[in-house]
């Protein structure tokens, strides 16, 4: 079960790494990436717990494994929605900047 310990600790470090990204990112996409890495770390700790629960002929406890799959899909949904919001914001800002520019050039 040493791999459960190694990857559990790696998951803890990943969560820290993601927190750092979330706090220091200068652009919105960096925050989304940091958030995903933070989530990945939490899933990894959960996966290590699943591995520790191996038994009854299974390599890991299937219940947490199923929940991790659900978690990955939900995390993807959140990411996609955040990116869609970001793209819309950029379009809106570009339109606004263009309008402002046109106003300036007119006498």
């Amino acid at each position, binding site marked *: 079960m040493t791999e459960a310990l190694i990857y559990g600790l790696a998951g803890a470090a*990943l969560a820290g790494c993601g927190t750092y990204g979330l706090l220091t990112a200068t652009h919105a996409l960096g925050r989304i*990436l940091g958030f995903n890495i933070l989530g990945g770390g939490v899933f990894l700790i959960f*996966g*290590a717990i699943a*591995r520790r629960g191996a038994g*009854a002929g*299974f390599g890991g406890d*299937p219940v947490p494994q199923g929940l991790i799959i659900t978690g990955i899909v939900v995390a993807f949904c959140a990411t996609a929605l955040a990116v869609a919001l970001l793209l819309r914001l950029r379009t809106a800002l570009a339109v606004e900047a263009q309008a402002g520019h046109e106003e300036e050039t007119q006498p």
Partner: protein
Amino acid sequence: MTLLFDVVLALLLLLTAFGVVTTGTERPAVLAFMGYGLLLGLVWVRLAAPDVAMTEIAIGSGISGIVLLRAARSARSSPHLPATPRTMMAHAPGMKAPGEKAPDKGVSDRKMAALVSVGVAVLLGGVVLALPTPAPSLAPQAAEALPSTGLGNPVTGVLLVFRGLDTLLEKMVLLLALIGVWALARDPLWRGAPAPLFPGIAPAPSAFLARVLAPIGVLVGIYLLWAGADDPGGAFQSGATLAAMVLLLMMGGLVRAPALGSRALRLVVLGGPFAFLAVGFLGWASAGTFLAYPPGFEKAVIKAVEIAITASIALTLVLVVLGPSAGEERP
């Protein structure tokens, strides 16, 4: 030997993640993130979770990667835009005006963030070290109940039977995410086709790759669905693989984005969650409780639900990646 492999893999994973969060520019950060997803997939294999590995690589690295790459490209195409979060923070009350002592502030902010992050990591690491032995496990219960479902893969059993409610709710989340993305359209009717994934004519290698890879990928996707009952695989993995193949065909310029107003398209999207919900309600009639499967026909009904869910997952993932309808606002 395997211990060495595990340690090296864990370190590589951490290095890649650190690369993602410290790279200032968007595109390299996204590329590093996709590599991180692949490494994480390998880790799942080492943790004896092949089902999670497939989901991670297909959704966490592949499809997320396309979404994020598109976002990174939009930043490059509009370089005159300010980096919004930073400027917004500079104007927030209690912060120094931009330019005044800015570098010092940045460094102390970073130190503070590093301190908080190390604190989070150490705390979670402590929790990992303090996990109880023997580890609590639901594996024996799952193994005991699995024969009654007619399935052989315990993870599929958990997703579709033991924790079916979670899966049903997750389908709804996927649907809500799609509605959220569509709601950002400038076209109030949500009817038109979304903008093409990558504008311009597809490069010849992309088209070639799509022609060669898509038939194999579709076959693998269908196999994953069928084999998922007894071996690693299942609705999510299969849906994600099929979605990736459709996106590959679109990137190769062989398939065009569909109009979002199409009735057939909306029926397939709604088919998965609502077929699952209908089976759930039928459970009251046939087995006495919500989301129970009719005794004697478990495997057949589960497979039918899985097929509807897979088609719906694949199409929803494609539509979420494609984004809202590109139509313009109408008066």
